[in-house]
């Protein structure tokens, strides 16, 4: 069964003359553990799609089903719970609370869930280790590089062991080396730790880490391609003229 499924998902901002259809009848589904990249020009509705899937915003029409539960039926508190327990978020900016250390930031969702803070810290440290930041656990965000900050954000997104991770341009703010590291990390999140990922990106090299790419234009999905495990490198080499 799909972990996320949208049906006819539509979002219209504003009314009358100034109405903008940011998302137009989008059908999309993600299998558990699937890594999907969303690409498309600026303003085509990628963030809107992500926000609706994450229950951060409410659709004008259409449905979002997560784990078999349709989220438009849920109250604000229930959606909040769902986000806390089943979804991890990684944003482009403002990911971390500046006054908390790396491990505290990573533990936040558990702490918000009233988890015992010792247990929360232990889990957070475990995840920090997995993202390769065990020696930075006590540092505050301003003492971390952009890439390290995003890794803390990934650790935080995973600490509740969610089924789905939503990432809106997680590398938009990083240099290419750090971007590559984060993309590799996300790849690992999907293949090794089995989380489904829906990631918005502009960067083909980042998108190339995904299993599938969804191309959007003007609020619609125009193409949806599986890119993992299809062709040999030889074919690729030939096509780019190295052979």
């Amino acid at each position, binding site marked *: 069964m799909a972990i996320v499924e949208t049906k006819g998902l539509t979002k219209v901002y504003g009314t009358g003359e100034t109405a903008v259809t940011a998302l137009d009848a989008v059908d999309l589904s993600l299998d558990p553990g699937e890594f999907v990249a969303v690409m498309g020009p600026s303003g085509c509705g990628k963030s809107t799609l992500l926000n609706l899937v994450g229950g951060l915003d409410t659709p004008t029409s259409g449905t979002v089903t997560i784990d078999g539960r349709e989220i438009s039926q849920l109250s604000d508190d229930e959606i909040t719970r769902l986000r806390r327990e089943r979804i991890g978020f990684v944003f482009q900016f403002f990911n971390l609370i500046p006054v908390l250390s790396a491990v505290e930031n990573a533990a936040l969702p558990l702490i*918000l869930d009233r988890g015992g803070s010792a247990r929360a810290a232990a889990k957070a440290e475990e995840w920090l280790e997995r993202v390769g930041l065990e020696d930075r656990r006590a540092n505050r965000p301003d003492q971390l590089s952009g890439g390290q900050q995003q890794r803390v954000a990934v650790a935080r997104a995973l600490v509740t062991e969610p089924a789905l991770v939503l990432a809106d341009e997680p590398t938009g703010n990083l240099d290419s080396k750090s971007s590559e590291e984060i993309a590799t990390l996300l790849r690992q999140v999907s293949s090794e730790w089995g989380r489904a990922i829906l990631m918005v990106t502009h960067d083909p090299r980042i998108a190339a880490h995904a299993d599938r790419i969804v191309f959007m234009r003007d609020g619609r999905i125009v193409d949806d391609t599986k890119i993992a495990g299809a062709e040999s490198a030889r074919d690729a080499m030939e096509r780019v003229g190295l052979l």
Partner: protein
Amino acid sequence: MSISFTLARRYMAGRKLRTALTTLAIVLGVMLIFGFNGTLPGMMEWMRKSMLASVGEVDLNVQSASSALFDQRVADKVAAVDGVAAATPVLRRNVTLPEKPDYHTTGITVIGIDPVVSPDVRSYPVAEGRMLAASDDDTNARPVAVIPASTAEKMGLAVGDELVVPAASGAMTFEVVGTLDSPVPPATDEVYVSLPLAQDMFAAPGRASAIEAAFEGGADEETVQEAVGDAVGDGYVIGSVTADSTLAAGFEVAGTIFNVLGLFALAMGGFIILNTFRTIVAERRHDIGMLRAIGASRRQILGLFLTESLVQGVLGTGLGLLAGWGFATVTAAGMSELVGDLMRIESFETSFSVSTWVLAITLGMGATVLSAILPAIAASRITPLDAMRPQLGDVYEKAATKRGWVGLALVAIAAGMLLSGNDGLIGLGGLLLLVGMSLGASAAVKPITDFFSRGIELVYRREGALARANLQRNPGRAGVTVSAVMISLALVTGIMTMTAAVVGGYAEYAEKATGTDYLVIPQGLMLSGGMVGAGPEMAEAVRSTEGVGDVATLRYAPAVVGDLTVQVVGIDAEEYAKVASFRYSEGSSDADLAKLADPDMVLANASFRAQTKTAKGDTVEVMTPEGARTFTIAGGGNDYINAKLPTVYVSQEALADLWGVTADVMVLANATEGADKAAVLQSLGATIDGFPSFKLYDALAWQQVQNDLFGQLEIVYYTLAVVLAIPSLLALLNTLAIGVLARTREIGMLRAVGATRRQVKRLVVAESFLLAAVGTAAGLVAGVPLGYVIVRSIGAVGLEFDFVWPTTGLVVTVIVGLLFAVLAAIIPARQAARLDVIRALRYE
């Protein structure tokens, strides 16, 4: 520790200056409330103790309710009651001693006792010499007195020495025949004389100030006390000794003022906290949105901010309590020092009752948390999506404009009310004006700053323009600050206006009073309780002095109307009209003064009429030592000296009949036409030397004294006004500091593109000046009507003054406003100038 506390602590620690300023706002209010309420009970307790000590071991004490003198034969009624072993009249009066260097005291209580009966009621342990005896009653013999050993020591007297005490008929010289070991109330020095002698001294023959009685062994105290009450009838207070009511009232008024000051400071603190938290919420918008996205509920966000306000409240209140304790301790020490010279006290104790703790903590915490609630709710409404959006400035702007219109409407309504002439409406109008102007403040920021910044831009063009743009960019925050400054300075202006009116009014009265050439008045200015009067000799002596023409005397007794203690002033209508000028209320004239010949007629001053809600032609029931009497108000008028207290004027015959008072407390005299005034003054001076508790003034000297007095009064008021404005200084400081923090990046950028430290400093100072200018302008506009409201309202309680345009007050207000602008700018300007460019640019 919970995440909320962790976050609150870390966020606050990350913004030390802002946290300190916000904390200070609460500290001030809590300190005043806690400190004063901690001092007041100590003072009251101390006073009560002194009173109790003065009663000593007396079982029962009977006094007239008005503390007026009464017939000493009441003692017989008391003595006749079952269960009373003995009862004796006592005449207790405070006198001001002529200044004599070796006396070390300025006041002494003369206590007239019956040497025969009194020792049955109270013990007089003799230390040296002897106790008074029956033979000492003889008024023709050489007067003798007995004094407590402590008084003897303080005044440097020993048995056999002479003690000069002012009396109605001039000074009286006593021989000290004994000293007593009896405990003396800490406040006073005492001298015991025989009752007839005392009555003679104070021109109160046959009268007593109290009856002291002792119970029979085994008698039930309450039953006896009740029986005594029945025996003496209405108009007497039995048992307890009422504290000296004027002093107690003084303390209570001071207490109220401090509490109001404290509340005001807290309200300002609330303003500051509101300001701070609004900024905090805006600043952490992204953090909040992110928290919401990763699963924090609205309630958790609300909790986060309330926790922070709680931490802030605990911090501020805790420090406030500490500061309050310090304040109380210092005050108590100061008071002990101050009063210790006059009265013998060991020390003032500060005492913090449970209710004081509860009051201070509740108000401190309450003000903090309440002020944080609105911003906290706003924070809980932030959606996760807001985290990713830039701030929406124009929404803010629209709301401010709407509020501006509401404010304008309120100001218009208030103006209508102020002009209505109706006291109630005027009061309400004053309040509405402040509310309206506060609401309108944020909308008015732009046009007013546009106007004022022109001045600054003349001198510093770039800094001025930038400062203006900064303020206009955040009209909400600027509006709150302007409101705080405005309300403070409106109060300053209001108080100044009131001061101008009151001082001006009294000066006018004083001038009228000095239509008289000479005044002979007691050392203390007011006619009050224990003041010694003078017998007819003094007026006679004045009259017979060469060059003196018309002479009028004033006599005084206390009385009670309903719950109100009033003064009864006895005048001779005919004499009085010749010498003094009354300031008649509308509809009254000299003809009404003449009506006092009828003993049932009185004149009433404005304060009396206002507080008893009576008018010319009404009747009032006045409690006299002879029981309740009904008088008709023949007319209304004020004389200068008694204008502050509710006073009725009666004929001197009526005063003698009903109150048994024949002593003069004030003599007014005019020189004969063509007499050499200076010469007359000199000979009058010689005459008055025989009456050491009185002082002689000529018109000029009198006016001088009054002016000095008002000068002091003005200074007190002005100081009060400036103190009132201090919280607004904090508000200003807070806003500037927040502004500097919020624009750290921008300032860094300015520095990077070549702004000098000095220019950055100027920028902040310019902003401060603009804020203060807007606040001050608004404060002046609101303050003058507020002053008008205050003058009207004190007029409504009987102190009629004309509204005077408070020029000095306005100047002082402007100076205070500008001074604050500079003071408030110092710290933030230095901070801004010191910013490390690189770090500032990296600042998020």
